[in-house]
């Protein structure tokens, strides 16, 4: 089997190399033919009259281009074959393959055997290559949309694909054979990865990372060929949104996994690898906003080109950080020496991009004209500033230990306290802009109209803030918020108040639009809002994404109210945390083929009433000889009761339990669902027909009254 996999990888590399060079050759020929036809090549006569030679040249270049396209499609087949072979080897417990030996064992449950594909260095690179080939497969099948632009994008994709296939063939071979005696059983999968979400978190994250190669390929292709107009933006818009949704999903699945598995009670630790996933997300989000400026006004062409490149580059940089070990991270499971390869690849892509950018930047010049500071255009500029600044802050914080080591000779830690101080104020500014932005019109907004639209949401937000400060704390986590007691309370109050502001502005946008449609069609308000959304899915889908974001922010704001307590719990012992009382009913152990476990049984009381029984577990994985906690979490809208079985007291054998009361965490996961729903809505094509209204009595025929829309 290993031979088949190795051969498939070599074949994929050969096909990619062919796809790249044949693609370049075909495009060079086509450019030459176009130049000859128009007689623009200096010092040479035009071939315009020698039509047979031109036709032959054109036909030849088209044929070469077609073979390049087919080679790209075949690459997908070859990489898919290699991936299937690796998964089959995992299911067959073929420990003659070093990768399977190090990342699987006989008793590993079936779903995790499938996840072996992306659980280690070599496999995850193969998976990355597979996803890239799959994206390329779809792109090359849809080439008729714009054959020339797609040919350029295909060449760029082949270049990126070659890098990953070179890695797989020569630096991190997934089918390397074990030397000497083959062990009877494997080392097993990292226990932290043996969790259902780990089966979907990496694929989602990789779909996001890899997906940003597509907008980059189109952008670079458009830059190289000096593509006229903004069509490439329209072509890549859906790709970018889908990719962004995958990355969002991947980032938050990672956060949920950390929360559910790592047992420290949090979901985001500002670890370099977490940061690496956040950075492309931030620039990608900035691009999704600024691209509208290019579509609507033909502005920010250069800036958008840079944003697309930065997003792609940061995704690769993230992988470099994960794999090189240059910055210490808890995600050490995939470190190796392939960092040099990534560093070279980053350098080469930067040089290639810079070369074509400076060579063709005159093509990107546009007539920027702003009529007012109070306009949608200005808000997008500030929006981009804040997103890029947040990205810079995260990048700066991630690299600062290394910079500090170079400058002052010693490393420093850059953890959560740094990001809380620096990133939260910027995030709050961004939240203000999220509230104001949608209320601004393109070109110019009068201050009167801004005041009119903004007044009620602002009053609403202030009322909520006062209400939260005035209410008693016993009402729940977010009540009784006294911002003067602690800076984190101040941030939380600001975040919640601004979230309310955004929600009310979004609601007012739906309401005002719905009211207009309702007036014209005499439908109910809800039906009108549905129709409104369908008539401009991108705009109203975007608003729903904004609403999802504020729900997530409210969830983040809850962290200021968290409580935790640690206690040894013998039979019948009590622990009180917040409104909950925990009574230890029992503790015991168990044995399964893959792991041994210790767990406690705790009755949970709220007041005098028993509301639940919880069982936090600690497992010992036999193959890898590592332990892992499985916290038991009782989730509610107000707070999560989060119990961790930390271990046994060696003196008396009593379990030691840690209880966390984490406020508003469920809001984060709900917000992510809303964001994804909004993204899906934004991907649905707009309803084509204008609204038709019944004709007035004095007019005989039906009269259509169009209602204009705009992002």
């Amino acid at each position, binding site marked *: 089997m290993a031979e088949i996999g190795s051969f498939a990888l070599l074949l994929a590399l050969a096909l990619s190399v062919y796809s790249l060079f044949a693609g370049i050759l075909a495009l060079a020929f086509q450019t030459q033919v176009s130049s000859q036809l128009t007689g623009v090549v200096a010092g040479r006569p035009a071939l315009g009259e020698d039509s047979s030679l031109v036709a032959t040249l054109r036909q030849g270049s088209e044929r070469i281009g077609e073979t390049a396209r087919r080679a790209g499609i075949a690459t997908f087949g070859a990489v898919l074959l290699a991936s299937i072979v690796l998964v089959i080897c995992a299911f067959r417990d073929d420990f003659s393959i070093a990768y399977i030996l190090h990342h699987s064992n006989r008793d590993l449950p079936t779903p995790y055997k499938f996840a072996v594909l992306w659980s280690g260095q070599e496999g995850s690179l193969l998976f990355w290559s597979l996803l890239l080939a799959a994206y390329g497969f779809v792109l090359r099948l849809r080439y008729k949309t714009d054959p020339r632009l797609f040919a350029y994008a295909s060449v760029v994709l082949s270049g990126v694909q070659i890098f990953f296939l070179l890695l797989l063939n020569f630096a991190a071979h997934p089918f390397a054979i074990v030397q000497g005696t083959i062990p009877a059983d494997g080392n097993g999968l990292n226990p932290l990865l043996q969790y259902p979400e780990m089966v979907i978190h990496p694929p989602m994250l990789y779909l996001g990372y890899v997906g940003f190669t597509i907008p980059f390929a189109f952008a670079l292709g458009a830059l190289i060929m000096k593509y006229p107009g903004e069509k490439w933006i329209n072509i890549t818009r859906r790709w970018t949104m889908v990719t962004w949704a995958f990355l969002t999903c991947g980032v938050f699945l990672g956060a949920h996994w950390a929360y559910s598995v790592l047992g*420290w009670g*949090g979901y985001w*630790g500002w670890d370099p690898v977490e940061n690496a996933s956040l950075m492309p997300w931030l620039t990608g989000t900035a691009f999704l906003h600024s691209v509208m400026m290019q579509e609507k006004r033909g502005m920010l062409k250069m800036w958008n080109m840079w944003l697309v490149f930065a997003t792609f580059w940061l995704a690769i940089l993230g992988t470099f950080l994960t794999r090189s070990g240059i910055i210490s*991270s808890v995600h050490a499971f995939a470190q190796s020496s392939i960092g040099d390869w990534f560093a070279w690849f980053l350098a080469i892509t930067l040089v290639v991009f810079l070369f074509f950018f400076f060579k063709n930047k005159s093509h990107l010049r546009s*007539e*920027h*004209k*702003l*009529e007012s*500071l109070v306009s949608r255009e*200005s808000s997008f*500029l*500030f929006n981009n*500033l804040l997103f890029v*600044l947040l990205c*810079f*802050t995260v990048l*700066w914080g991630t690299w600062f230990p290394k910079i*500090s080591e170079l*400058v*002052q000779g010693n*490393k*420093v*830690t*850059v*953890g*959560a*306290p*740094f990001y*809380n101080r*620096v990133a939260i104020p*910027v995030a709050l500014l961004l939240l203000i802009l999220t509230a104001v932005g949608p209320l601004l*019109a393109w070109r*110019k907004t009068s201050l009167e109209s801004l005041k009119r639209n903004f007044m009620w949401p602002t009053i609403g937000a202030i009322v909520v803030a006062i209400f939260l400060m005035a209410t008693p704390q016993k009402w729940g986590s977010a009540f009784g918020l006294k*911002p*003067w*007691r*602690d*800076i*984190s*309370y*101040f*941030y939380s109050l600001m*975040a919640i108040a601004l979230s309310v502001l955004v929600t009310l502005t979004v609601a007012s946008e739906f309401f*005002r639009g719905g009211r*207009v449609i309702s007036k014209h069609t005499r439908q109910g308000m809800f039906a009108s809002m549905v129709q409104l959304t369908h*008539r401009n899915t991108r705009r109203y889908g975007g608003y729903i994404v904004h609403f999802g974001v504020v729900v997530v922010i409210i969830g*983040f704001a809850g*962290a200021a109210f968290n*409580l*935790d*307590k640690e206690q040894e719990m013998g039979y019948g012992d009590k622990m009180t945390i917040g409104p909950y009382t925990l009574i230890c009913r029992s503790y015991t152990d168990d044995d399964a083929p893959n792991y041994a476990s210790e767990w406690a049984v705790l009755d949970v009381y709220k007041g005098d009433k028993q509301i639940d029984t919880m069982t936090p577990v600690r497992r010992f994985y036999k193959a890898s000889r590592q332990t892992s*906690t499985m916290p038991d979490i009782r989730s509610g809208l107000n707070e999560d009761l989060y119990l961790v079985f*930390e*271990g*046994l007291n060696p003196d008396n054998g009593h379990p030691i339990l840690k209880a966390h009361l984490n406020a508003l965490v469920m809001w984060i996961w709900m917000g992510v669902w809303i964001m994804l729903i909004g993204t899906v809505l934004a991907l649905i094509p707009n309803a084509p027909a204008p609204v038709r209204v019944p004709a007035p009595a004095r007019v005989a025929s039906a009269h259509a009254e169009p*209602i*204009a*829309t*705009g992002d």
Partner: protein
Amino acid sequence: MWGPPPSAVRAAQPGRFAGSAGEVMREGVVKILRECVMANSSRKTKRSQPSLKAVQTLVLCALVFAFLGASDPVTRFNEIGHQMMCICGCNQILLECNHVGCPDSDGMRNELMASLTRGDSDSLVEQGFVQKYGPTVLAAPTTKGFDRAAYIMPFAALILGFGLIVLVIRAWKNRPAPAIADGLRPVRGAELEQFRDQARQETDL
């Protein structure tokens, strides 16, 4: 995500300060309060400047919110404990290190509590830990020496970016309108506003 203050912060008592760092903060806040009051009273004779007053009020509010945290030993234990890392290699905040049998966190917590009980100031406690465990024991860069760059850079970038955007907007705004065909004149001023209002009314969604 909002960081530090779990349980004990809830029991905070506003206005109470302990240790020299707290004293310095209190003196600073009182000084600024006094200056603001004096500035306001002297301005009563002149015409007050609303924007300056607003800026002063904002600065004051920010300082009050930043420094008025309570500082009894338990609160300080929580605050400082959340500013430090466990050194066992788990990469966790000292008070969040959650594995039983950690060779370091229990000892470090005891040391922290002992220092606070002795009445050491925040900076003295931190210095002691840095001397013993190295600078990586602090969860965030200090505000001294080169470490300051960690905090300055993002805000410098914010100010720079903000200024740059304002300049760009002004430049774009002052750019002359593109030439249009003969016989047509650009619509400006009140006439343009009239067309805008009409367009809004007809297309308002």
